[in-house]
């Protein structure tokens, strides 16, 4: 039986290293480093689940309207970029849904402290779930399997 294919979207390699070591027998794992790459990967292949990091401060390319944000932040381009970086996971998720991809999205973000925000995102981006910051590989395995059921 073919393994479920999980696209890991992160700006570093922490997750893919850990997953490869601890979840490599359970899933087929592929990593991309930014939102545009994620969109390319979605266009190029089928995926069973997309694992999304939230913060992308090491990515060279970001999804989002930088100009609008600069205006919001009174021309502060740095702050606009920082805002995009800090919330890039939601921007990527938004882009995925806008592109019409229905894949389950699993955020790596602690929404435990922001239930209203998560509820807001759920109404727009479902099916989504999250693993909090302290989730270990076993928790993540469970979360993925739960979303794939």
């Amino acid at each position, binding site marked *: 039986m073919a393994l479920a294919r999980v696209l890991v979207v992160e700006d570093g390699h922490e997750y893919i290293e850990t997953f490869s*070591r*601890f979840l490599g027998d359970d899933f087929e794992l592929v990593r991309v480093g930014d939102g545009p790459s994620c969109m390319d990967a979605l266009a190029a292949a089928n995926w069973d689940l997309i694992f999304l990091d939230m913060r992308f401060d090491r990515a060279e390319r970001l999804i989002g309207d930088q100009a609008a944000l600069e205006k919001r932040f009174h021309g502060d381009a740095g702050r606009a970029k920082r805002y995009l970086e800090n919330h890039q996971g*939601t921007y990527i998720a938004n882009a995925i849904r806008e592109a019409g991809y229905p894949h389950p999205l699993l955020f790596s973000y602690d929404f435990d*402290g922001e239930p209203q*925000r*998560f509820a*807001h*995102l759920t109404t727009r981006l479902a099916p989504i779930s999250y693993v909090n*910051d302290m989730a270990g*590989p076993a928790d993540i395995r469970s979360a993925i399997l739960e979303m794939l059921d």
Partner: protein
Amino acid sequence: MILLWFFWLTAAQGSELSPLVNERFSQAVTAEKAGDFTTAAAQYGMVLAVAPYYDRAVMGLGRSLQAQGDVPGALAAYERLHASPEAIEARAVLLENSDPQAAADLYRLLQTLLLGDEWPYLGEARALTDTDSMAAATAVENYLDLVDRDPKGPTILDVLGALRRDDQDERAEALMVRLLNDWPQADWMPEVQARLDRLLIERSAQDFIVSEPEPLSDGQRTVLNEARLSAAQGDTERALTQLRLLIRDAPRSAEAWGTLGEVHLQLGQVADAEQSYRWALAIDPAEAVWHERFGQLLITRYGGKRDREARDSLRTARALRPSWAAVVYALAEVERSLRDYDSALTAYQDYLKMDPNGSWSSTARKRVADLSRLAPPAIETAAIDDTPAEVPEEAVQQYRLARAYRSRDDLNAAQTAIATVLDVAPDWTAAINLSAAISLAKGDGQSALASWNRSLKVNPNQAQVWLAIGELHRQKGRLAEAEAALQGAAQRGVADALYLLADMAFDSGDFDDAERILVRFFELSTGGSRHAPALALQDQVVDALQRQKMLLWGGGSFVFLSILLFWVRRLRAQPLSTLLEQAPGSAHDVAMVVSAVRHELLKHNTTLLEELAEALKCGDVDAVSYGVRRLYGDEGAQGVVARFDGYVRQLRSLGRRHGVLLDLRNKDPLFAPMSGAMRKLRRLENKLHRPPKRSASRFEVAEQLVEVGKALNDDAYHALGRFMQQLGTVHLSSEALLEVEERVREEPAFTHLDLPLLSVQVASEPIPVRVFQGDLDDIVANLLRNAYQAIAMNSPDAERRIGLSVIEQADLITGLATVELRFQDTAEGVLTDAMLHGRSIGRGLGLTVDLVTRHEGTIHVESEPGWSKAIVVSLQRVESSDTPVAVLAEE
């Protein structure tokens, strides 16, 4: 000779004389042995009256007369035995000083009588050294032809000196070359070599000299004086340079060479100094000063081994300048050290005549007195002869024989003799002890010990035997046995044993004991060889005790102060909350560090602990190694534990900057549990680097990892989250906003103004907002000030209004909720975003923009229906984590 005499003395008893004469002879021997030479001479005389050629009596008479200073009498006595080698030798020895030629003749007679014996030739050489050096040299060469072991040095060295004195350098050189070639290993050959070197360099110098030493010119003398001044001022290197240049300019200046030697000597360059002096001597051998300098160098820098050469040099110096008292004294000293007491005595006396009040006159007088002192008559030991009555006479004689052999270092003969004694008198302690001493001298410590123990069984009250046993044990490193034996000696009143016990106590670091024992030593000691060492040891003990006390005091004080300081710091130290209370401005920095701990350390790393524990249980070495690198670092990269310590240090440093001493590891409810968990991780490091082979042990480590994981991933992580939330969350309410407004209105700038009351509307209070309380207060206060000033200046009295409405918003994409604080007023005039962010405003608004930006908020100007404008501050709304996620999601 004395030993031989002793042997004969003891052997003579019981010879073939009539009983009466035999008794006389015995009395003579006893008197001589006791040092009563007058009686001895009389008794020997009476024996000789009956038996005029009884050789032992003749020799005894000669010795007795000689001992009384009656040289002619002694010679006459010895002459009775004109064919006896022993008597001839005695006469020769007596005549060596007074009639060297007669002595030499007698030695020649002995050479004939004792054909093949080498020592008469040496005697002849000794006799002729001062009067006929060439004949003495011939005698030495004959002696060397016959000697079959290392030749004896003193006489030969004297002969060499005499040859040099008599300008018989070639003969001296030949003799020295022969000595060096044939007996290079003899211990006095270095002196021969040195003398040969000196002879050769002097000969070389003779070739060098073609005229009288050249006097220095005025300029050269100036240089010499400058060099001397440099040396006197301690600049010896400069002096050396100046002198070398001078010698290049004036190579035949003995003065320059000699001064160079003095400077070399100052620098401790003995060989260079010696060479320089030799050049000075070679250039100007008639100058006494260089001989004196050279002699002093040999005396002071060769530890006595070149004293004979030094004596020659000093004798030359004296001959060249007879009035030089210091040289005479130095000569006396070196003669004395060479044991030529007659010459030394003469020299001391000469010195005192020349300089009776000189620097060394006191010492010289004492030397003269000492060297002139005659030995007192021996005590009558016969009266205290304690030979046990039960010991047979035969044993006593053998015992004496053994002692005589022992004194001559003929240990085998001594041992044979004492064995005979012990066969006859096995319990005679004196013999047993002598046997022990002989065994020890032969290097057989075990036998010596056995003998002494046997002796103590016969008579345990032998303090010196206890002492000897103790010393032997100590030498062998058997300290317990040594201590027991020395205690035995000490109990019997031997002070030396106490000294040794004290020394042992000192060596073992028991200074108190050493001090106590030394007190007993000084109570018992009345002098002796141990007294001075004991005084020195006492000084050492006192020093050690003082050091020990200082160390104890110092160590104790240090420990006490350290503990005190630790507790003071511990008691004074505060948790993080105190820092935030006392220095609210630190909140931002605190938040950054705490956020980093939570995000960088806990989130990305410690979540692995559970998997690491599983890997450990399964023996997955790679996985364990991976986790270990994350935790403890690898190849210069810091691990979690070290980075945690770094963050703690950052916070403590932050606290110090604000004057708050933080104790995060013990007092802070947030960091203390994390610190404990990190400590556990630190303790597990070795076991994780090298996992136990036994699965039970690995499981145990794994369980501890799980426990640490829970502490960090569950407890600490959530605690940090709550802390962050509390730290950066303000519950916005109308009441709080009005309190700020009230404070602003009470400020001096506004108290005299007729200002409208603030109208506040909060949608659903309290609203949690992500901002620090102090910052929010400043933001609100600044904007209110700005509004009051504006309406005071630009708003008609009837229209003056000011309002603040708080509403909630949400970002469509990110879902982030925000809170808008809309500061409304009726003031006329223009305020745009560009003005607000371009800083073309008052200082208060500029600060407000900074504060809002710091909290990731925004601030802008909007038109507002019913108002002139609104300044809108947007801050992030904080969600309550108390609300279950599922419920909210459903909502």
